[in-house]
């Protein structure tokens, strides 16, 4: 064979591009649909004679204006960010040390405890929200953002522990031993070695917890009743769906605005995620 690396035929290359293009369209389409619907006049959207993929009438800012002026969207966005940050912080503080301890526990106890903790994640919120609401009212947290800040970790923490255990187990013990010999304390080795190496896992936990806060519905709906304390996940469907009237333009605008930051973060750290999933594959 001549030249560096195998030459691929035109058909193979075209085939690859077709696959890549297909996936790109599949993934980008929801964003396109949200964007175009946000700016379409309602009459244009509902007319079945019109081509649904383009503007048939001039675009409008009416839906955005409605979203920002007639609803508490900005407030909901802020609430979601705040609750998201708090839940992420609580999750990391609890899950990272717990996962580390469980991953390093010798014998079968570590594994079994890990599975036990993960099982609690499988209990659905629809079963838990009634007993949970009693707890919330006993704590006097009903109708505040705190209600969800303290309840969301009940499922982000178990899942994150389970996820991080996998990452931590992939770190060879020798590495920690080497750090101990090289002059660190056990805690120092954890902070300077284990955490940087498992950064992709920790990042995954951050994004998982944050997206959960933006999408969760049952707890947020039952624990918080006043509009100014709601999150996007509850405020948007409640106030933009009135009976059987859907405010499609504003709904799509709200979804687009909420999803863009998360999509950006995902793309920014894409390499890290992939590195995370292949950790331990290389000796």
């Amino acid at each position, binding site marked *: 064979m001549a030249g560096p690396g195998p030459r691929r035929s035109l058909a193979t290359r075209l085939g690859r591009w077709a696959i890549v293009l297909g996936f790109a369209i599949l993934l980008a389409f929801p964003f396109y649909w949200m964007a175009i619907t946000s700016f379409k006049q309602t009459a244009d959207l509902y007319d079945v004679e019109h081509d649904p993929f383009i503007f048939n009438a001039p675009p409008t800012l009416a839906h955005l204006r409605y979203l920002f002026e007639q609803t508490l969207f900005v407030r909901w966005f802020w609430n979601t960010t705040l609750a998201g940050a708090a839940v992420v912080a609580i999750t990391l503080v609890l899950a990272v040390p717990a996962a580390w301890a469980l991953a390093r526990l010798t014998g079968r106890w570590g594994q079994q405890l890990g599975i036990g903790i993960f099982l609690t994640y499988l209990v659905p919120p629809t079963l838990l929200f009634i007993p949970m609401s009693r707890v919330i009212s006993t704590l006097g947290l009903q109708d505040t953002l705190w209600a969800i800040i303290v309840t969301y970790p009940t499922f982000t923490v178990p899942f994150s522990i389970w996820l991080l255990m996998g990452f931590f187990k992939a770190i060879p013990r020798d*590495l920690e*031993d080497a750090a101990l010999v090289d002059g660190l304390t056990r805690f120092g080795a954890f902070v300077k070695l284990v955490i940087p190496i498992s950064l992709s896992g920790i990042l995954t936990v951050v994004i998982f917890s944050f997206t959960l806060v933006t999408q969760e519905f049952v707890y947020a709906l039952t624990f918080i009743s006043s509009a100014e304390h709601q999150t996007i996940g509850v405020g948007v469907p409640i106030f933009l769906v009135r009976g059987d009237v859907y405010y499609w333009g504003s709904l799509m605008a709200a979804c687009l605005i909420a999803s863009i930051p998360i999509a950006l973060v995902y793309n920014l750290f894409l390499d890290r995620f992939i590195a995370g999933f292949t950790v331990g594959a290389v000796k």
Partner: protein
Amino acid sequence: MAIVETRKLTKVFGKGEEGAVNAVDLETRDGEFLVFLGPSGSGKSTLLRMIAGLEEPTAGDVLIGGRVVTRLPPRARGIAMVFQSYALYPHLSVARNIAFPLKAHGVPRERRLERVHWAAQLLGIGHLLERRPRELSGGERQRVALARAIVREPTVFLLDEPLSNLDAKLRASAREELTQFHKRVGTTTIYVTHDQVEAMAMGNRIAVLEKGVVRQIGTPREVYNEPADTFVATFLGSPPMNLVEAEDVIAGFRPESLIPLAMVQGPAAAVRFRVTLLEYLGSERILVGVIEGGRFDGRKVISRVATASSGGIGEGTAHDFAVPEQELKFFDRATGKRIAPRVLQWR
């Protein structure tokens, strides 16, 4: 540089289990290259890890440079260790890997750079400093691990099978380099291996371990020529020492001592040797066979002879062979321990 000493050092992992290391008393010499040699499960790595402080002893003490360090964490023992997996920090460049112990000990930046370059120079890895560990070959990783170990000039080096992840060819040259390196820095070194070739080639002395007990400690020549018991006799040497049992005694002789009768001068134990299998190794041949007739009739023994002096020997033929008397070692049959020479009737 320092002397490492263990006093009745013991490690028992599970309650009621046999000890992984049983009351080991050892003392290195200053600047010595001491090898712990033993099969897997002999406790050699556990012993090393207790000296490093990575494993807490069940009983006994570790002394480094005359100071009892049993209760001290690894970082306070002035040691450096090279692991079998090299344990390079995957998220740091080679330069930062080497600088890691210095940084952990609060060495200022200027001095750190200086030391890193000194270590890299010494091991010939100056051109790799900006790379990540995963971009290195096995041999390069091993050098980086060594550089990280010497960079802060430890009083003792602990090496845990550092060559076993290299391929055979590289291993031979790495062995040589390590020996040269030890001669240059002169630091007391403890080296763990299960490979007797490494142990014989590199060690000033070898401690042979089995089941958590030091069976013998001595120079390579001593443990090979004067084994203290049947375990040491059969663990060292390839093929191992031949052992034949009489009433209360076991007689042992190395395969290279069982040679054609015609080549033996002086008193010797002569036997009739029928060759059943012949392995050609170039300059030498391994003859596997049985003793015919006499007291040890039917015993399987192995001979290693120069190809040049064993021309007429083929599979299935029987020949007169003999072992020079001074090459015979005797062991107590009950304990396996070495005993004084006896006169045995061979024919």
